[in-house]
């Protein structure tokens, strides 16, 4: 898929750039710190490469909350940074409103449904159980997908789709890089032997 390879190239560039920024700031990091930095860079780079989806926007805004990541994020976002902040703010406000209104609606729904639920479950336990299962799982999925809390079911599935695609890209790239560096190190060490 040429779109995925384009995404891969974007991702790599941003990731490496981010890593350079990261390691320029701190010289000697221990293992866990390094791992965190790597992962963070990778996540942000992926989100920046995939700019227009809501999960990526959520990830970016989440990262921006911490001051230390701000420069990183800004650098990685640089070409689109003029557009992004407005969009993220707007979207975040909209999503907050959505969350609030949803909560109110849910509460009122619960009341109604409690009245309704007295009857149907007796006759249609299977569907009732199925619905409960689906609800639980959508909740879990909402927690997994970044920014999923404020989405309705349909867009959640869409975002999950997109997120899966980009996660695949990320895993692919990281895997090849890890293997490549491993190979490099092996051949390095073999020379010295």
């Amino acid at each position, binding site marked *: 898929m040429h779109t995925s390879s384009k995404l891969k190239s974007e991702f790599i560039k941003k990731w*490496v750039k981010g890593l350079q920024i990261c390691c320029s700031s701190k010289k000697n990091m221990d293992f866990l710190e390094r791992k965190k930095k790597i992962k963070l860079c990778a996540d942000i780079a992926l989100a920046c490469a995939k700019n227009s989806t809501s999960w990526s926007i959520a990830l970016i805004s989440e990262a921006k909350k911490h001051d230390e990541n701000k420069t990183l994020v800004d650098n990685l976002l640089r070409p689109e940074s003029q557009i992004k902040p407005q969009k993220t703010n707007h979207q975040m406000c909209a999503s907050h409103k*959505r969350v609030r*209104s949803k909560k109110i609606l849910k509460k009122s729904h619960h009341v109604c449904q409690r009245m309704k639920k007295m009857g149907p479950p007796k006759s249609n336990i299977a569907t009732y159980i*199925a619905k409960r299962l689906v609800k639980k799982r959508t909740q879990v999925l909402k927690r997994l997908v970044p920014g999923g809390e404020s989405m309705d079911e349909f867009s959640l599935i869409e975002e999950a789709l997109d997120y899966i695609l980009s996660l695949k890209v*990320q895993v692919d790239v*990281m895997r090849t890089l890890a293997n*490549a560096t491993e190979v490099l190190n092996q*051949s390095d060490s073999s020379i010295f032997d």
Partner: protein
Amino acid sequence: MFTTHSRLDAVKPDPGMDAYWAGLDGGAFGDQLGYGYINPNTNQRLLTLGNSTSVSVSVSVSPKKRKGQSLQVVSDKEKKIKGCSEGESRTTNQNSNSKEASTNTSSKEKSKVSEVQKPDYIHVRARRGQATDSHSLAERVRREKISERMKYLQDLVPGCNKITGKAGMLDEIINYVQSLQKQVEFLSMKLATVNPGLDFNVDNVFTKEIFQTSTSEFPALGCSSVDSAYYQLNSTDQVVSYCGLDMGINSAEMGLRRGISAPISVPETFMDSSCFNQIQPTANWDADLQNLYKMEFEQVTLIPFQSHQFTGSNEGSNMKTET
């Protein structure tokens, strides 16, 4: 967010529908979605999922202040709508989606009569023997949207073909996302161990990128023969030319040559694409690398390099130790 009433004013009902709507006062619906037209939102995301007749349009429900009125009026009109013949009805998206989220909806042609639909509005026809209640229609639309997406997800998530229920599908999706996330964690840990300084060979990376953009696979067997041939080509002139150039570019060469010299046990994708790049006239490679380097480094150009063969020797490592 646009306002629904302004949109409706601009709407003219289908000529065929005049008979139905004649009785309904247009003015009363000035600011409702009473006809059951779903107005598109300005930010649309077009997704065509294999169904050629479906057009997906993102919809936003009317703003909060109108919601109370509009829902009432809609229910009134629905009673009248039910009286229409041919079992035809339009549905609003409000009932199914009373939350203020914007959704993507698709228009479908289901019934025997097919009319030219305005692309902006969602027209849903009731199927034979099914309720024409707007609630159930909206539910049906919603369910069909979701099942479409589920099908798409089935292609994406491996091993989902046998599961049909929504809960099972969601389960699989959750597992897959979790496993992918864990893989990312693990790989980042691996990278942290493998690379003690976070100083990734940037150009090593770029070589990988080029590998990934190459589309065809090269058989692993071919690789080995090529390797041996290229091993011989560790000419000194390469080493010399390396010295003069930026370290970055050196490591690109190194990376690539390393890749070639690696045993075939290295993951196939990596190997295959690298060998592929070896054999082919490196047109892609050159162009891509050139672009990349120009963009990223704006430093030494690769032109002197491109004529050189990329070999599987360990020159690069020598270079590394020397410098």
